[in-house]
């Protein structure tokens, strides 16, 4: 590898770029009541960043909850990425999209999430909160309002949820009041990198759907030589 030979050459010119090396795994996910899940992994970074080695996209296997355990699916999917950049802005993010299948074997979104790769070198366990966008369409909402006026409409509601590919089952959905149960139409982002972008969020309504656990090891190279002061301790400081 070119980088390793450069590392040995002590008389090399001062570096013009720094590197970020990440290894780790997408370990597991917990989505209350949801089963048979797979996770799509994408990397989003700024224009000054370049992926030198590793895959920018990955898809895990379909994982199920093992009988008798908690609601955790294990993917244990490996990640290895090396980035090169001249600028901290656009620090890479890992974008996760979790899909599941409903009882008709249709592909439905179970959650979106994104997280910046930790800035601090070292080992990290990152818990990514996942959310699912909700439909803001007028029709489902009007329908919901109409339905809540009807007594004993739960069968009908279930039928509409079924048409909208909202499987009955998630405990969170049932705990929620009727309108949201009906309006929980599965909608997807057109741009899969949307969870990593700050723009356009004000028009979306989401609901928390679960968490995904990542284990990441981060190595940073040449940042100090370029004049950056980066944190070296990995303990999170809490200020209140």
């Amino acid at each position, binding site marked *: 590898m070119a980088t390793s030979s450069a590392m040995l050459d002590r008389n090399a010119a001062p570096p013009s770029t720094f590197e970020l090396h990440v290894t780790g795994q997408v370990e597991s996910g917990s989505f209350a009541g949801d089963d048979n899940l797979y996770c799509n992994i994408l990397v989003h970074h*700024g224009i000054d960043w370049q992926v030198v080695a590793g895959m920018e996209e990955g898809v895990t296997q379909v994982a199920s909850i093992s009988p008798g355990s908690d609601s955790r699916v294990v993917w244990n999917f490996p990640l290895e990425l090396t980035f090169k950049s001249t600028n*901290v802005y656009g620090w890479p993010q890992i974008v996760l999209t979790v899909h599941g299948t409903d009882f008709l074997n249709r592909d439905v979104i179970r959650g979106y999430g994104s997280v910046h790769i930790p800035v601090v070198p070292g080992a990290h366990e990152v818990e*990514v909160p996942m959310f699912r*966008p909700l439909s803001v369409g007028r029709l489902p909402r009007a329908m919901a309002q109409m339905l809540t006026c009807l007594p004993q409409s739960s069968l009908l509601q279930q039928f509409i949820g079924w048409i909208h590919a909202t499987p009955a089952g998630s405990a969170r959905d049932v705990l929620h009041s009727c309108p949201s149960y009906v309006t929980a139409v599965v909608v997807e982002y057109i741009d899969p990198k949307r969870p990593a972008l700050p723009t356009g*969020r004000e028009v979306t309504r*989401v609901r928390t759907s679960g968490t995904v656990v990542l284990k990441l090891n981060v190595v940073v190279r040449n940042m100090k030589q370029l004049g950056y*002061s980066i944190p070296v301790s*990995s303990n999170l400081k809490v200020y209140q």
Partner: protein
Amino acid sequence: MAEVHVVGSIAQGEDFDEPSLLCKWSIVTDDGRADNKRWTLLEGFASGQTQVDVMPRGEPCVWSYPLDLHYSTTALQGWPKFHCEVWSQDSHGRNSLAGYGFCYIPSSPGTYELKVCTWRPKPQSWLEYVSAFFLGAYPQLKDSDLIWRQDDRYRLSTFASGVVVLRISVITLGFEKHGIQYSSTSS
């Protein structure tokens, strides 16, 4: 000329009494003064609004909103301040105020979990109390600069509200070249 990078996220809101929250945020530098400007935003967004997290009352509300800012500065004065307004949205799309809060971006490199305590103005009269109770229409600030300004707070009476959690990392460039010293945990 030194540079400051802020990378992280507006993670979540906790301990709010209201359901379905959104957070409108922005970062102020130079104390909001246009004259004597020492901080420049080179890249990134310094303001924005999160999505609405439709969550039941009492549960933490997850925004997971990415932050990535790049500032250049010639002075330490006017250090960036993050401030936010948390609003609760009901099923008809009406927003009502849940809290105001602000915090400084930490000034040394590190990874931080910042908990921004928020407050909201108290209803001034009995009638406002009643309307706040039934309609959730809490009084709002006319001028939202008061969230982070030092002046004019003494006439305000407020309630405590929830906490906004930020998880951010601060990276600086060229500060040590100008003689700035950090504690031993950062290099």
